[in-house]
């Protein structure tokens, strides 16, 4: 999957952003299939907003975004759902878990929303790699942020995807866990030959990025 940005600028931040130089806002930018891209973004520059534009959660922008050369403004809700099920996966900054479901159920629901990409055992395997096996049957609302973040990462990885969006995916993790999570993500993306965009406040070298951009 390829995502193309064409002069996009968020309407609420228009005034602030117009006088700043940015690799993304108000430029042409193409994120190619299989490309691993890091976007460094200081607070308040519209990092989460950008991820939501990518994922079609927000529409308050000027310019155009293309999913595989299709203008996202012309895609209906059912087609968006198909893209999210088959091609585009995401780790939200605010995690967005169902508090009343267990960790396993939170992951499982994303696995079975479409024809499952992997087996249910794969969840146990990934949980073991990230060290959250013990809380798999615990309600998500009772898990710590660090645990919730790892649940959200695994949830994003159990569905089929060609493009992975990650919004500060390691913000609640210690370095050891960051590395484990990054390894898992890299392995899954390589296996699928998938592209990803990861946003972060600072510099990091968790992945072998093809490009690094500044928002």
């Amino acid at each position: 999957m390829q995502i193309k940005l064409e002069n996009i600028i968020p309407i609420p931040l228009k005034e602030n952003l117009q006088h700043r130089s940015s690799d993304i806002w108000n430029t042409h930018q193409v994120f190619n299939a299989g490309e691993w891209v890091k976007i460094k973004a200081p607070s308040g520059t519209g990092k989460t907003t950008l991820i939501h534009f990518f994922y079609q959660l927000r529409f308050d922008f000027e310019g155009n975004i293309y999913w595989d050369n299709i203008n996202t403004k012309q895609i209906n809700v059912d087609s968006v759902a198909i893209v999210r099920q088959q091609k585009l996966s995401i780790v939200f900054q605010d995690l967005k878990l169902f508090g009343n479901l267990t960790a396993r159920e939170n992951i499982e629901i994303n696995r079975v929303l479409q024809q499952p990409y992997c087996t249910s055992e794969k969840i146990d395997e990934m949980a073991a790699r990230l060290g959250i096996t013990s809380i798999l049957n615990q309600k998500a609302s009772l898990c710590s942020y660090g645990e919730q973040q790892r649940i959200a990462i695994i949830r994003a990885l159990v569905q089929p995807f060609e493009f992975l969006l990650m919004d500060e995916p390691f913000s609640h993790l210690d370095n050891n866990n960051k590395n484990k999570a990054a390894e898992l993500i890299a392995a899954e993306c390589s296996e699928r030959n998938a592209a990803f965009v990861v946003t972060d406040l600072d510099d990091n070298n968790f992945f072998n990025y093809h490009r690094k951009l500044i928002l």
Partner: protein
Amino acid sequence: MLKKLLKKIISTASGRTKFVMAVIGLSVALLLILSAVQIQANYNELLHGKTNTDSTANFLVVNKQVNNQTINATSLSDEELKQLQSQPFIDGVGNISASRFKASIESYSSTFPFYTDIAFETVPDAFIDIQPKDWQWDENADFIPLIIPNMFLDIYNFQFSVSQGYPQITPDVLKMISFKINLQYSNGQKVSYTGRIVGFSDRISSVMVPLSFMEWANKRFGNSLSNKPSRVVIKTKDPGNPELVKYLQNHGLTADADKTRFSKYRQIVNAIVGVSWVTGAAMLLFALLIFTLFIQLTIASCKTEIQLLITLGASPKQLKSFLMQQFFPFNLIVTCVVLIIIAGLQYVLYHFLQQQHIFLQPYLSLSTIASAIIVVLVLWWVNRSTIKKYIRI
């Protein structure tokens, strides 16, 4: 697995009691409306079914009421006859024509002497309840066949003979006795014929002669008074039809009260069935409203969860079909249970009425099943459109 998870996400928020209330409301409404249909079907069957009536048609003798306004003016005009004929509930009208000449009848026998002035009436054969084999008249023969009301013989056998000390007479004996019938020209000259009773009628309460004889005799002996009938026999499928009774009343006509009396009961039954229909329909409307509100409430109370599901990639289509599967089967189950209950009641009713010699179908009527299908379709549509309306993102 997906269903199980969706159920866990969506049903946790909705109230169990409200759901039970919605289902009960729906059941009562369906029970009322489908029973009304079944009662209507039973009722129609009782009215028009072959097993419950002796003959498919009934005959009523209709004439104008004799009161201060209609004295000596009770004949029915052509206009009135035409109107009567054109009514949808009247299948046929037979004019009863009266003789327009003086006549008398006397016995040949000196042991049983009698003499009386008499008048005849006639009606087309199709309107007479009996067709005796001697009911033929021939101009060249000297013989006139007569049909008299059964009532006349009863009056003789049970009143007259007792009071006068005469022997009782059986119908067969009476049919063998010949009488002398004198017909009188308008100038007073008399001609005698032989008459014999050939049958007894329950339908028309007068002495009847064949139509052909009446036409001939009226021409020959008649005094050229009005030839308009005063009475007619009408043929109708249903003498209890309230429309017929109303029509007769409005036009100052009377008919055998006994036969039309049923009309009152029918009006009452009609009213009751009507009330049941209206109540059932109103209840159904409310039940649909309750169910719609219940669906809205369920969706509203887990709006965040639904939103998140869509964010994660659940398609609105998937959610709609899931919600439909959550709500619609209950509607189906309720309809089936109600149908089973009504079928049971119908079976009991069938057995009960059979003992009273009233025959109904032991099974549900087709119209009840058809109504149930229509109601299910309405429910399906209401469910679907409510879900569609509230799963907008």
